[in-house]
Each structure stands twice: as C-alpha cells, then as structure tokens.
C-alpha cells in the first residue's frame, strides 16, 4: 500500500488545481490540492459554481411552484427529491394520500434510485479507464428513462408528485414494462460482476482506497451508501419508515471496511434490493385514486414546522419547512447528503496519492449542484 514515508519539507509543497473543468469531477467541482510529490497534504474543495438560490426561491414560490425546483437540485434523484418534498408538505398540512398513489410514488422512486446508481457505476468505471461498462449501464438506464418519461413526461427532472398523490395515473403498460425491465436488469448483473467486480485491475484500484472510518462518518454527517460501507447500518427507509416502506421485505447492504470497493458493492447490492421492492410493490398495488381530489389547489399549511427525511440515492435528504400559514413557505431549507459526503473528503484525501484522488472522488458519488442548491 502507498504510505507517506517522510514528513514533507515545507518549501517542496506545490499546489495543483483539480477542476473546475475536468472530465472526472461530477458536476462543477474545484479541489485545490497541496501536494508533496505525489502525496496529497491538503485538499480544499471549492464549490458554489452551481449556486442558483433554491432556498431563496423556496420563500418566493408557492409550495406547488417549488416542486420543479426540488428535482433540479439533485438531478439524478429527481423523483426521490420530489417524493420527499411532497411527503414533507403533506405531513405539515395533514393531507391524506390514496393507497394507489403511494405505491406509484414508491415504484417510481426506486426506479430513480436504480437509474442514479447505474449512472454512477458507468461513470466510476470510466474514470478508472474502463470505457465499456458505461455504455452497458446507459443501455439499462435508457429503459428506466423511457418508462418514467411515459408516466411523467420528463426523462430526468421530474415534477411528478403532487400533494396528495401523483399528477397522472399509470396504466397496465407501465406495469408490464417495469416488470420486464426488472427481469432484464437482474439478468445483467452477472455480466457486470464478471466484467468489473471480479476484474483484478479494478480490485487493485479500489481495495483499501479512500477508507472512511465510522468516526469520520459521524463527525462529517456522512449518510447513505458511504455510511453503510463503513459498517453502520442506517437507512432512513428502515429507521423512520415513510410512505409504505414498512410493508416491503428488503435488506440494507452493509460494508465492513469503508473503502471504495465496499462502497461499490453496497451500491450494486442496493440496486438488487430496489428491484425486490419494485416487484413487491407491483404485486401489491391496488386500484383506486391516484390523487386526493379534496386537497386544496393552493396548499396553505397551518403555522408550524416540519423536518422530513427521505433516503435519496446519495444519502439522507432532509426538507425543513417552516410555514407561517400563507401559501408561501417562510423557510425552505434542504439538507443534502452530498454536503457531508464531500466534506469528509478533506479528511480522507490527506496522505493519499494523487492518482487515487480520482478513484476516491468517484466512489463517494457526489453531485455538486445538490450542494450548491
């Protein structure tokens, strides 16, 4: 393993700029590295290139008008962010959701999780130099995007959820296509494992690289697959079951060492578990309303606040809404998972090789616009 064998001499430190235009930083990220030879002494991420003022917009839009904003923060988990926002407002206002709508939302959310993980898988291996799995993963992802396009009208940034359900019902076409897709995806995993997971070069690039300890995870607020790779079994869907997740039988994959290989394995296994949830949901989905018609068109929640957390593809996303009784939120704060996931890198990158920095950055799976809001 690569270790720093001597103390760096101060006048030999030079700084190198990684980004903001770089093929491997996901989103617009600039990391200022202080290097001693090939070892990183200090890593300082500089963000804010994608700041659009979503939280200020949140105070100037009605609740319904903010729904498109929510999916543009983390554009890869747009449906999950939509879902979380709808749930938060429904909790604040006490709006009921019909059963069918709950199932539809859960299925779409899990499909979104799979598509986000597939994209991460493709781009991560591409960063390491293996160009081919990227195209195989995108082949699968195209099917998800087509299915979600047929129900919601958008491929990437959805505004599908409404307060009290969804905006459009799904037909048998959706059910058949989703079932076929899940079947096909499960049959593709042996290919992915043969091509990537068992590849000796890939294992050498990821085993023992970028270890995040449990204490670091706690200090920096790391959540999601990065946290589970360190060994802490915490998934918001199991810890604070929302919607109908307590009706499904699924496992939460956990790693042990917290290195990049563990993070990779956790995410691949999460895709399999999401497939399980989708299959069970498709079996259990009842007929009925897709939207609570009695919900007011312009939602005016009573005075108060709510903090609602959902498990998005990258970790725990929290919506903190404060309502003053009007149609506009008084404060709309979103706690995004990539914030802590990126921050932990300032600690993890110390003492690692520059060549590993790309591998570690890729394995953490950050989406910068989510941090910038």
């Amino acid at each position, binding site marked *: 393993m690569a270790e720093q064998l001597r103390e760096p001499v101060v006048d030999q430190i030079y700084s190198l700029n990684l980004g903001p235009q770089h093929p491997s930083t996901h989103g617009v990220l600039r990391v200022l590295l202080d290097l001693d030879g090939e070892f990183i002494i200090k890593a300082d991420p500089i963000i804010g290139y994608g700041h659009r003022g979503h939280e200020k917009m949140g105070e100037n839009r009605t609740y319904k008008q903010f729904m498109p904003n929510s999916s543009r923060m983390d554009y890869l988990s747009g449906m999950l962010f939509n879902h979380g926002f709808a749930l938060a407002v429904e909790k604040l206002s006490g709006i009921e959701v019909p059963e069918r709508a709950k199932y539809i939302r859960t299925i779409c959310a899990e499909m979104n999780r799979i598509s986000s993980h597939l994209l991460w898988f493709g781009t991560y291996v591409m960063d390491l130099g*293996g160009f081919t799995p990227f195209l195989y993963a995108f082949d699968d992802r195209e099917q998800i995007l087509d299915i979600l396009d047929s129900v919601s009208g958008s491929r990437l940034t959805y505004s599908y959820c409404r307060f009290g359900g969804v905006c459009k019902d799904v037909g048998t076409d959706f059910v058949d296509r989703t079932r076929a897709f899940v079947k096909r995806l499960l049959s593709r995993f042996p290919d992915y494992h043969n091509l*990537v997971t068992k590849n000796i070069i890939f294992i050498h690039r990821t085993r023992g690289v970028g270890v995040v300890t449990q204490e670091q995870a706690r200090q920096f607020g790391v959540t999601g697959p990065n946290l589970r790779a360190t060994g802490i079994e915490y998934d918001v869907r199991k810890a604070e079951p929302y919607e109908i997740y307590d009706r499904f039988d699924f496992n939460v994959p956990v790693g042990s060492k917290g290195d990049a290989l563990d993070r990779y394995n956790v995410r691949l296994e999460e895709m399999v578990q999401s497939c399980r949830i989708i299959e069970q949901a498709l079996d259990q989905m009842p007929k009925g309303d897709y939207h609570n018609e009695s919900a007011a068109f312009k939602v005016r929640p009573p005075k108060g606040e709510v903090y609602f957390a959902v498990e998005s593809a990258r970790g725990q996303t929290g919506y903190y809404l404060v309502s003053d009784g009007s149609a506009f939120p008084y404060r709309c704060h979103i706690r995004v998972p990539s914030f802590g996931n990126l921050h932990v890198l300032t600690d993890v990158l110390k003492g690692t090789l520059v060549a590993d920095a790309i591998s570690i950055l890729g394995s953490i799976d950050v989406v910068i616009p989510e941090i910038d809001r």
Partner: protein
Amino acid sequence: MGHEMGSDWVRLVVGLVVVLAFSQLNALFLVWLERKVAGHIQLRPGPKEVGPFGLLQTIADGIKLVGKELITPATADWKLFIIAPVFVFMPVLVGFLVLPFSPQLILRDMNAGVLLIFAFSTFTVLAILAGGWASNNKYALLGAVRSVAQNVAYEIPLLLSVMSVVLMVHSMRFAEIVQAQDKLWFIFLQPVAGLIFLICATAETNRAPFDIPEAESELVAGFHTEYSGMRFGLFFLAEYTNMFIVSAVATSLFFGGWQGPFGFDLHIPGIVWFLMKTYVLIFVIMWVRWTFPRLRFDQLMNFSWKVMIPLSLANLLVTAVVLKFI
C-alpha cells in the same frame, strides 16, 4: 557490378516509397478499425456515415486535423516543441525496413534486424520527453515523465523475452528466426516469453491498461496536451504505426511470420499469412483496451519491476539451461 549496385538502389528507393505508402495506409486503416472495434464492444455500430462502413472516416478526420491551426504556446521552447512529433514518427518508419513480410519482401534483411527495431523504438521515448518538456505545462511534463518511467521499466522484460528467442535461434536476423519456426511456432516452445512480450509491447505503445501518460480522465491530460492540429495527428499516427510494428515483431518472433501452422502453407502467399496474424494480434491489443480499467501508476511500476523482470529473467535462465542439455 555497377548494374547490381544500380538495381540495388532502385530496389531501395522503390521499397522506401512502398513502405511509406503502406505505413500511412495502415495507420488510416487502424484508426478506423479501433473505432469499429470499440463501437461493437460497446454495443454500438461505430462510424458508418462517411464512406461504406465508415471507411473514409479517418480521411475526414485527417482533413480536419490538417485544417486546424497549429498553436505553439508562447512560453514553450518552440524548437523542441516542433521537432518532437517528427521524432516520434520517424523511428517507427525505420522499423518497416527489416520486417519479414515474406521471404522475398524484406527490404533489408540485416543480421541485427531485431536489435535495429528495438534500438529505434527507444527514440520515441526521448521524443515524448522532449514534447512534454517543451510544452512548459505542469501536466504535460508529468505525463511525459511518467511515460519515460513506464517505457524504461517495460523495455527490460521486453528485451529479455526477445533474448530467449534469439538464444534458441542463434541469430538476430528476422528471416532466420522465421525460418526456424517452420515445424513449430515459438509460442508453443516459449509461452511465457510470448506472453511477457505481448504485455510489454502494450506498455511500450502506451496502450490501455498502461495508458496513464495519455489518459484523459486522470489528473493530467497527458504529454500531448498542448499539441493541436497535425502535430497531434503525428503523435496519434505514431501510436498506431508503433502498434503495427510490435505486432509484426511478435508475429515474426513467436507466431511463425510468413508461414502457415506446422509448415502447411495451404497455398496462401506468405505475405497474407503475415498480415493476417499481425492484424489478429492488433485486434487483441484493441480488445484489451476496451475491456480493462487502468492501472494506477505505482501499481504499473511495481508490476514491471517486481513481476515482469524476475519472470523474464527466470525464463531466460531456463531457456539457457534447457538449450545446454539438448
């Protein structure tokens, strides 16, 4: 006497012209082949618009490259900067002089043919270093330095594996090495040396999984960052021509050159056998590129110094011992 000398000169000039033409056409063909192979491995068709099956795509790319502005950075050392791409391409062409395309089609069957090819291929390392240094760019220099380290490290097991073959044939003349394989190809007698040669050849030509010096998705963009237009085109073509040369050498040393398997010709001319085998090896090199991720640089160096070199030394030793007792 004069007549022989005259025909000698004519033969040389004609041969050089043919070699130049062939190397250009070959490079064009290989660029197209790479894109098609990459496409089909990635479940997509690759170029298909320009010309039948996209065969004229490379010509279109070449015209585009020629039309681009040749930018020389203001702070670069312009003499070295301009010379470097030329020096990368030139030595590779020299290799064509000694390749045994068929019993009659060797331009110059030198008695140190093997040595000549490897001596000239080392020039490219100097040229890459010159290009990286002259660019006056932190990233280009890092890429060039890594390329030099990689090339030096993998040159040694390459030459040691070639030595094992030369020891068996007692000659460095390509024609004799090929003729010595008329009963059995050397790949069956020296499988370890053959494998080492192929791996080191991939590393020598800076192909994946050993393409750190020119990798786009790593921290540095590689030694040819600052090159634009046809200068970049020369680096690019040199890589593909180099790939042809090492595959051709592998064919001659291990796979029987212009001969058919086990001496059976099947009435196919020698040059066809030679080119067929060479292109199959090139295809394998391309196949490897699109399948495997990249090794980290220190893992790459460890692999060479701690695995390849001891293995090739042991192979040489075993060859010597076995030959002593046969």
